[in-house]
């Protein structure tokens, strides 16, 4: 599964930050994931327990903030909640919408221990 690749990429990013900050440990990694990012949070958590070994994040907690799926209607201008496979306007039902949230795949923040 590609969650392992995503996780390894995330850990490289986190380790670079830890090194730059001269931190000895990574305590917490906070990420934001939308259902339309193509990454499954549970699989990323599983991958994390394997991939973190031997890194400064070995004992870190991975916190996932799931982002809601939301669309902006290009017809009537209304913003509404939607589902990953039903991205229609909740007000007028039109399919001509633009995703405004739900495809995030972001490293939001990291918490580090110095000394």
């Amino acid at each position, binding site marked *: 599964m590609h969650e392992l*690749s995503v996780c390894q990429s995330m850990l490289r990013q986190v380790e670079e930050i830890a090194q730059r900050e001269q931190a000895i440990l990574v305590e917490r990694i906070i990420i934001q994931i939308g259902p339309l990012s193509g990454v499954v949070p549970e699989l990323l958590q599983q991958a994390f327990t394997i991939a973190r070994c031997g890194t400064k994040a070995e004992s870190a907690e991975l916190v996932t903030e799931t982002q809601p799926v939301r669309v902006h209607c290009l017809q009537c201008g209304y913003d509404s909640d939607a589902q990953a496979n039903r991205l229609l306007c909740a007000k007028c039902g039109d399919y001509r919408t633009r995703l405004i949230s739900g495809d995030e795949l*972001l490293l939001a*923040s990291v918490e580090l221990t110095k000394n």
Partner: protein
Amino acid sequence: MCDTCGCNVTHGNRHLIEEGGKHAHTSDDHVAIEVLENLLSENDHQAAHNREHFERHGVLAINLMSSPGSGKTRLLERTIDHLSGRYKIGVIEGDLETENDAQRIRNKGVPAIQITTGTACHLDAHMIHQALHQTPLDQLDLLFIENVGNLVCPASFDLGQHLNVTLLSVTEGDDKPAKYPVIFRAADHVLITKSDLLPLLDDFDPDNAGQALQQLAYKNPITLVSAKSDQGMDEWLSWLEAQLSQAKENTTEPATASL
């Protein structure tokens, strides 16, 4: 070779050059740092670099995605039959194992680079970059990248392509777009393949597939094609030619330096 683009400034050391994230000291030995960067920023940087390669050489790059066996290679073979007189085509083939697909393409007289990913179920921008340096980009108008057969993972990795084409064969079921929204949403063109088999199947309705796509707010073309009977090939080929001429228009000036 890649020094000119500054990509030796890697994702990692870029932090050292630019000012990093915001710092919020919580206590003397604890620090929380806001980052807000894509989790795949390493891949994204490489993808942007690949795109530069394509553009400097005036090559239109198209990524083909589908589940295994939906007809990607056979569609390419047929597309080459029709277009190779007018355009210079190249192919990068991604597979878990074997050179088979690249060999099928080479048999058509077209250069093909095979990437065998081993256990990785998708291509990433770094693999494409390696293949690019073996590809005669100077001599090409159109480069197809056949991704690993998989409806999940390839959608998350930008390769530097200009366009995505997602294939759905009629033997797979017309509800696939609802089950795999990420990969179908990413498409610039959806091809419903193996249409010659439709009379044999009582449970695939192209209209249902179209509706499932519309529910994903999909607004791009959907074409029913068969690489066997050539049904829909004209539509597919004229879409390709339209993309090629648009890409030509967008190319402002010829390459000044090679990457």
